[in-house]
């Protein structure tokens, strides 16, 4: 028998006011952290980097301005301005200075920045020239790798310019023994360090850095304790005064000590969640199985009568608001790729215990309610589904999905657990997985997963097959032969595999270079003290201290590659209706559909390259003239007609996503061209590479750098997202799309797969709509699909929101592995979301 109480609890007025306060203004960039870390680094030159990191962290926590926002019950803010952000010059800073004057007005994720802040940041940043992880990483990379990045085969932008994040630490341990307890463990390890040990230097330094970091966090909480007391003394409202006094007591006790009750547990959790993001700029710091590790504190307080379910819900809601108070400014290109101010703090409910029993409890339901009450993009709420998930929980989750918030995302235990065991996790650890960031599974507190290590555009190697390794007139990859010379489909496919393998090796080269840079310049002692076996081994996470180490870069565009391969197989080799030469020309000419400025420039550069090769001099004027002539070029009518005929033949072919075995099998195989070579590589932390198949929202900007493809996709249109069918190409309804996607091998993509589905609200109406929705998810999962997420909104609403953003400021949509406010997304990403097939039930 299940013993949970699923009765919904009403949202309090406080929560509405906290949300309104948070969103009253555009988020702002602040300079305090950049100044403090610079001050500290200047004072610690010559010391071990581990020590410098800990001292800098301590200096920041001692001095950064603090604030308690009106009516908060859980406190701790990294910026004075709501939803503001600090900067992290140790990873990179140049992009921000270059964007000082545009960051406020850009379309994706704008931030306000004052002139004073610009001045202060500039002063601090000047110290960091030549000292950042991105500069060191670049110096480690092979020239071919830099060339491949220049030609947009992949982008490792995430960790290249930022901290790593992408982790779930031992929140349970902090709740249980506090940082005093962790310090005792560090002391015990220190006592066990012997003068003659070969790792004395590293271990001793690391453990001392841990002690400094723990003390810094305890001290930071005490600053809040004092602030709350001061505010209480001035507070006239008796009820609020009492709240502030309790907050003061809480912050005095936790996270120094183990938490005594639910409110303390909430506060202790929050400091860990917040401060991890002040130590480094990594995103996707994921709370993980919050309903599991918070439950003992909830249960104890409810049983003793010290806590009501109503108060517990309000505290949860407060945490949900706080998770939206943290923010991060990314460079303009990355902001497009991660649009929606998202920090990807993934929080997951349900699933099974380490012993394989159902784990659902009251909090599983209350977390879903919190998402509904707060109705904001963070946290990225997820739910684990397995064969014994209570239907009540799935229906409760489906009701949240129906609101259109794009939450929760659904994950399949029956695929993920074996996939993780295959990567070396124990059965118990695999059963205890949670999701990091978008869709990446890991065992909390034991893993440094590097889950979002890069985006790899699987369409670019395909272009290289047609161009024999040239891009815009320049050599960009290996030469796999003149495409017109291929006599069989297998020859063509082999060339594609070679292009893939080569560029995958460069992707690995890039990731490992960046890995080394983080190890050398940015080890993170605070984060590391909450992950096994860092303290025992005396190594930070960045040095390989974790039990499980992975690097997980994502491939995307499978649908385009599969449909493209099918085109070549059918039209060229089986039906012989088109030659590869014709297809190549048709792609270059964008199927006769005209060119935009980007393609025109590429063609001009290609022409320039050819001229140069002939020994002719090419000036900027010549290139500009070529661009103009390409833009206004009129193809001969017969040629244009042939290209359009080819495009029509392609459009008439069956496409991935329609439950057609032949196409789907090709897609399964195409995915292996990425997942299989990748898993043969190792990283510097002693772990292996594992593939993910998801794009976040990078399919839009990276699609913009990709020419026309043989699936009929025109130049610079978005590439298919994740494992989903190409936008608008799945026309046989949701079950057919699910069946196709389930035909991929999700188990090998153990860094996660992402299947986006858009449902029309009518498809989820009524009890019947909800029940059917749950059956759809379970039916997909029965066939070994890994993940599913939904946008439930009609096309008309989205079109109207583009026209009248002011009316839709609260419209949340599912972007990729996360939800975002629709109106904050760039126009091109908005268009992409609208294009994704709307799966309506019935006609």
């Amino acid at each position: 028998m299940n013993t949970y109480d699923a009765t919904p609890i009403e949202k309090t007025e406080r929560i509405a006011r906290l949300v309104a306060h948070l969103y009253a203004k555009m988020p702002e960039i602040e300079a305090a952290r950049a100044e403090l870390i610079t001050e500290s680094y200047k004072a610690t030159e010559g010391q071990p980097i581990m020590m410098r990191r800990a001292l800098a962290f301590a200096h920041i926590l001692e001095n950064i301005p603090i604030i308690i926002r009106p009516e908060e019950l859980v406190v701790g803010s990294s910026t004075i301005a709501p939803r503001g952000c600090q900067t992290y010059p140790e990873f990179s800073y140049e992009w921000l200075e270059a964007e000082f004057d545009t960051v406020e007005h850009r379309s994706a994720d704008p931030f306000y920045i004052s002139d004073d802040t610009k001045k202060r940041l500039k002063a601090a940043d000047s110290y960091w020239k030549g000292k950042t992880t991105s500069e060191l990483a670049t110096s480690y990379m092979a020239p071919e790798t830099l060339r491949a990045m220049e030609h947009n085969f992949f982008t490792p932008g995430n960790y290249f310019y930022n901290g790593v994040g992408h982790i779930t630490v031992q929140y349970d341990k902090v709740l249980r023994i506090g940082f005093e307890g962790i310090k005792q463990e560090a002391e015990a390890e220190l006592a066990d360090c012997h003068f003659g040990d070969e790792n004395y230097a590293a271990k001793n330094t690391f453990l001392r850095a841990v002690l400094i970091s723990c003390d810094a966090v305890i001290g930071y909480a005490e600053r809040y304790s004092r602030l709350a007391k001061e505010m209480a003394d001035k507070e006239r409202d008796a009820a609020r005064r009492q709240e502030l006094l309790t907050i003061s007591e809480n912050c005095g006790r936790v996270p120094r000590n183990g938490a005594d009750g639910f409110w303390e547990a909430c506060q202790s959790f929050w400091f860990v969640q917040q401060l991890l993001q002040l130590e480094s700029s990594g995103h996707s710091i994921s709370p993980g199985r919050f309903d599991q590790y918070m439950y003992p504190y909830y249960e104890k307080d409810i049983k003793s009568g010290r806590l009501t379910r109503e108060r517990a819900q309000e505290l949860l809601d407060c945490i949900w608001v706080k998770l939206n108070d943290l923010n991060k400014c990314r460079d303009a290109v990355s902001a497009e790729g991660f649009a929606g101010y998202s920090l990807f703090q993934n929080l997951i409910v349900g699933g099974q215990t380490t012993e394989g029993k159902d784990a659902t409890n009251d909090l599983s339901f209350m977390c879903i309610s919190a998402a509904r009450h707060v109705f904001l993009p963070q946290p990225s709420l997820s739910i684990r589904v397995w064969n014994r998930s209570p239907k009540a929980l799935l229906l409760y989750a489906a009701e949240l999905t129906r609101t259109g918030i794009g939450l929760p995302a659904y994950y399949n235990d029956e695929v993920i657990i074996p996939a993780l065991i295959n990567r070396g996790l124990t059965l118990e650890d695999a059963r205890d997985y949670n999701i990091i960031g978008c869709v990446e599974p890991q065992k909390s507190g034991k893993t440094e997963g590097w889950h979002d290590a890069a985006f790899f555009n699987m369409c670019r190697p395909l272009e290289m097959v047609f161009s024999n390794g040239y891009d815009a007139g320049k050599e960009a990859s290996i030469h796999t032969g003149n495409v017109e010379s291929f006599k069989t489909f297998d020859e063509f496919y082999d060339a594609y595999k070679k292009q893939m393998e080569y560029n995958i090796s460069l992707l690995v080269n890039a990731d490992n270079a960046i890995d080394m840079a983080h190890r050398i310049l940015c080890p993170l002692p605070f984060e590391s003290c909450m992950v096994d076996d860092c303290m025992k081994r005396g190594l930070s996470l960045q040095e390989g201290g974790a039990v499980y180490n992975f690097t997980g870069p994502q491939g995307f565009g499978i649908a385009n590659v599969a449909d493209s391969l099918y085109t070549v197989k059918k039209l060229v080799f089986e039906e012989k209706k088109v030659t590869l030469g014709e297809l190549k020309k048709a792609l270059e000419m964008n199927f006769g559909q005209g060119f935009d400025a980007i393609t025109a420039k590429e063609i001009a550069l290609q022409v320039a390259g050819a001229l140069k090769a002939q020994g002719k001099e090419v000036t900027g004027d010549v290139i500009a003239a070529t661009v103009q002539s390409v833009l206004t070029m009129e193809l001969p009518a017969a040629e244009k007609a042939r290209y359009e005929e080819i495009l029509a033949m392609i459009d008439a072919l069956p496409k991935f996503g329609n439950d057609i075995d032949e196409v789907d099998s090709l897609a399964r195989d195409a995915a292996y061209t990425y997942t299989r070579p990748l898993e043969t590589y190792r990283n510097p932390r002693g772990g292996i590479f594992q593939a993910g198949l998801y794009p976040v929202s990078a399919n839009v900007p990276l699609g913009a750098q990709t020419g026309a493809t043989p699936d009929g996709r025109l130049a610079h249109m978005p590439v298919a997202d994740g494992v989903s069918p190409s936008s608008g190409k799945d026309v046989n309804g949701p079950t057919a799309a699910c069946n196709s996607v389930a035909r991929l091998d999700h188990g090998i993509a153990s860094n996660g797969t992402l299947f986006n589905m858009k449902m029309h609200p009518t498809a989820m109406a009524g009890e019947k709509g909800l029940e059917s929705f749950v059956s759809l998810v379970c039916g997909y999962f029965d066939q070994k699909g890994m993940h599913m997420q939904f946008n439930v909104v009609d096309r008309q609403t989205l079109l109207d929101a583009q026209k009248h953003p002011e009316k839709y400021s609260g419209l949340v949509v599912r972007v990729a592995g996360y939800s975002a406010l629709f109106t904050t997304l760039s126009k091109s990403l908005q268009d992409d979301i609208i294009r994704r097939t709307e799966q309506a039930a019935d006609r």
Partner: protein
Amino acid sequence: MKDYLNVSGRIFDIQRYSIHDGVGIRTIVFLKGCALRCKWCCNPESQEYEIQTMTVNGKPKVMGRDVTVREVMETVARDMPYYGRSGGGLTLSGGESLLQPEFATALLHGAKDMGITTAMESMGYAKFEVIKGVLAYLDTYLMDIKHMNAAKHKEFTGRENTLMVENAMKIAQSRMCELIIRVPVIPGFNDTEEEIMQIASYADSLPGVEQIHLLPYHNYGEGKYEGLGRPYLLKDTPLPSQEKMNHLKDMVEKKTALMCQIGG
């Protein structure tokens, strides 16, 4: 030998993930050809048995194809995981499936062999002996009763209702399947309290019938008439309001023992 798999018939569409015509997630097979010509019909391409060309989004589209039961079952089988999870299965719709009785029976037989549930939307326009053959493989009969007055029925659908009303009783008395009565609520035809109540009372008198569905008129089919080059006779007919539908539902539930639902 499963000879029935080779039986062929004429359909005009197969619709997957249908969640409004029977239990769970269903696949609807639309059989071509109908005995009635209801003015409000939202699938006018279903009426003629002959294969037709209809203009859809400016392009000609052939409506109707001859298929074997085996071919249909290949598509139906693709959604087995979802039927299993939801209790869904195959629904026959039309047209009037009973005009192709051997084909309809074979399709339902095929579904039963796969272990999935079966439903059929039909007005019961056939001799009861024919219907009886179908009932052997049918779980749920979704039967349309559009009006209790024979003359008015004929005016709006082209035929009197006598045979169908009698069949409703025979089907109910056979107890071979669940019988649900469905009423398209068409303004100007049957949307008065009195007319709806006449149907509901009759439904209430049918042994074993527990549910009645009121399906509000919609005009989604209007474009299809244009595509077939036919006039749409109900042009500018107002859609029944939500309040009106709720009112009719409340009335039916108050005055009969039936459970009444709006929509399928």
